[in-house]
């Protein structure tokens, strides 16, 4: 008997849960301004999530998925990606989307039940939120194949959750990405829970990162609550992708401090003591501690930032709440490039029954 294959999975962390640097930081992190940008992105995301949950609790927003505790994953992804890369998110990557130019008003419109929320004015090629878990992974392979066929030095980034790694089409996409050496980075936001099913019941694999090994490309683990590490590992994976060296899978270990969505009640299946322990590892306080220790951040900065975020979030919420619904017949507007004659009667019937003339003014 002889060994024909072996693998190892490396883990990257630069800031420990107490905000202390572990070894030398990557070069971008030598510049406090770059760290402050990451910090702002996380604080803004947390403020947005809090506002969105509040809007839902008061009946002014539909079901919403908070990213509480996982802000570093999205902030790291958003900061590492180039403007002309393509993001294919799941439904908890608002922090990355904001960095890429998706507006808070757009995402509130989406969760508030309006298709216009996915017509991003900013990143026109980015995919919208994907609710059927993991089904965007094949799209990401298709986008990456398009970039590769055109010979462009661009990459696609597909973010999925730990639950999605159990799905066949995620593996199918990874397998194809490996075969074609696609410029594609898979990011697994492993927040420990797929609604009520814990990571241990999702897979017997020691790491989710090693699922890349079966597809023939590298998998890495990163402390997903350390935004510096997430950004650094993404930088390397994106550089590999753009250089034609193929895909990478990054498993970001983080924790879902919130319910799955506003429609979920995690106390039904999860012990509060587990959650409170995890609050000690969350990413925002971790980076703040470090910034304060190196003298790059103070009380006034913090108060100013919180006020800025609050103002920005409130303005976005106001804009969302002030947006009138589309006329009912809008459901026919983008069904096909050109509405088939067969459907004109249905649209006409809807317009008349809904008294659309009054609504559209």
């Amino acid at each position: 008997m002889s060994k024909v294959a072996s693998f190892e999975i490396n883990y990257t962390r630069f800031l420990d849960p107490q905000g202390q640097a572990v070894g030398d930081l990557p070069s971008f992190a030598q510049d406090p301004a770059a760290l402050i940008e990451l910090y702002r992105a996380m604080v803004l995301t947390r403020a947005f999530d809090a506002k969105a949950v509040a809007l839902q609790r008061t009946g002014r927003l539909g079901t919403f998925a908070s990213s509480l505790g996982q802000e570093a994953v999205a902030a790291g992804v958003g900061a590492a990606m180039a403007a002309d890369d393509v993001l294919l998110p799941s439904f908890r990557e608002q922090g990355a989307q904001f960095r890429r130019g998706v507006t808070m008003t757009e995402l509130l419109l989406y969760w508030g039940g309006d298709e216009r929320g996915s017509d991003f004015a900013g990143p026109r090629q980015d995919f919208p939120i994907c609710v059927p878990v993991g089904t965007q992974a094949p799209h990401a392979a298709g986008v990456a194949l398009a970039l590769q066929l055109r010979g462009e030095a661009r990459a696609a980034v597909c973010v999925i959750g730990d639950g999605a790694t159990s799905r066949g089409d995620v593996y199918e996409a990874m397998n194809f990405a490996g075969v074609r050496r696609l410029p594609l980075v898979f990011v697994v936001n492993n927040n420990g829970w797929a609604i009520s099913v814990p990571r241990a019941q999702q897979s017997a694999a020691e790491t989710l990162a090693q699922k890349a090994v079966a597809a023939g490309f590298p998998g890495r683990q990163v402390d997903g609550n350390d935004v510096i590490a997430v950004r650094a590992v993404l930088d390397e994976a994106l550089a590999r992708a753009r250089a034609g060296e193929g895909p990478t899978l990054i498993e970001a270990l983080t924790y879902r401090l919130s319910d799955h969505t506003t429609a979920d009640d995690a106390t039904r299946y999860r012990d509060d003591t587990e959650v409170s322990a995890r609050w000690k590892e969350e990413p925002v306080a971790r980076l703040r501690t470090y910034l304060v220790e190196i003298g790059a951040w103070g009380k006034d900065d913090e108060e100013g930032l919180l006020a800025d975020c609050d103002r920005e979030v409130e303005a976005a919420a106001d804009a969302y709440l002030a947006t009138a619904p589309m006329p009912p017949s809008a459901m026919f507007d983008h069904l096909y490039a050109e509405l088939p004659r067969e459907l004109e009667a249905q649209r006409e019937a809807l317009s008349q029954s809904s008294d659309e003339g009054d609504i559209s003014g």
Partner: protein
Amino acid sequence: MSEITLVEAVRLALARAMSEDDGVLVLGEDVGPDGGVFRATEGLLERFGAERVIDTPLSESLFAGLAVGLGAQGFRPVVEFQFMGFIYPAIDQVLNHAGRLRNRTRGRLTCPMVIRAPYGGGIHAPEHHSESTEALFAHIPGIRVVIPSSPARAYGLLLAAIRDPDPVIFLEPKRVYRAVKETVADDGQAAPLDACFLLREGHDLTLVSWGAMIKETLAAADALAESGIEAAVIDVATLKPLDMTTILRSVEASGRCVIVHEAALAGGVGAEIAARLADEGLTSLLAPVRRVAGYDTVMPLPRLEAHYLPDSERILAAARETLEFA
């Protein structure tokens, strides 16, 4: 110009579309050196190269989803499924994504993709190779379902499907693949989508069908003509969206209608046509609308499939009952 089979017409249309538009890609299992299990993509690899004729791993959900990503990036992928029996993993991608990406992004991202699959029975194929489940797709909003019934219509409709800016499920009746030859001009002329083809005029009865059943239906119409009955024959061709205008116009004249499909009866596209006739053509009808279809059974293996598939005898029997209804 020469006489070619339906599968050759498919190949001709693929080559034409690929030569006209660099964005047209062919993907699927065995579409490369092997030229596809029915040889529909034969020669395309040599002519257009491995960047445009892509053999994929054996993963149906993947290549339907790949097409969504490629389409959103401006390519026009044409994906081949080897048999309709293997298309079901792709329903998730078609229903949840391809059919709705344009709508959910308000036109920002679109899916100009074609899914091709051989479908239907009658060639003594193994299990899972002979079903006609077009109704599953005809229920999905935002897509087109197109079924050619002759080489010329296969050429024109496939060109139209590839050029169409929205997703098209293109189902090829494999029983017809090599059964007939027809002169097809490789002139790049697309046939109209969303329109039925009136194959035969007639004011006594309207026969509505598609795919491989067109041959049986035309044979029934010939037999009726021998006894002086002129039956119109309509090839629906695009099942979604459905051109009811042409069907209603014919039934207004004939007052009698028989719908023929090899798919199972319950919930088939024939049920939609019959419902629409009841809804919009009732005052024209002189007899109940009849459907001649496959049974609501599992598609039998080859020894019994001839008993399952409608033939001209069954169509004639239904036609006579309809004509005799007073």
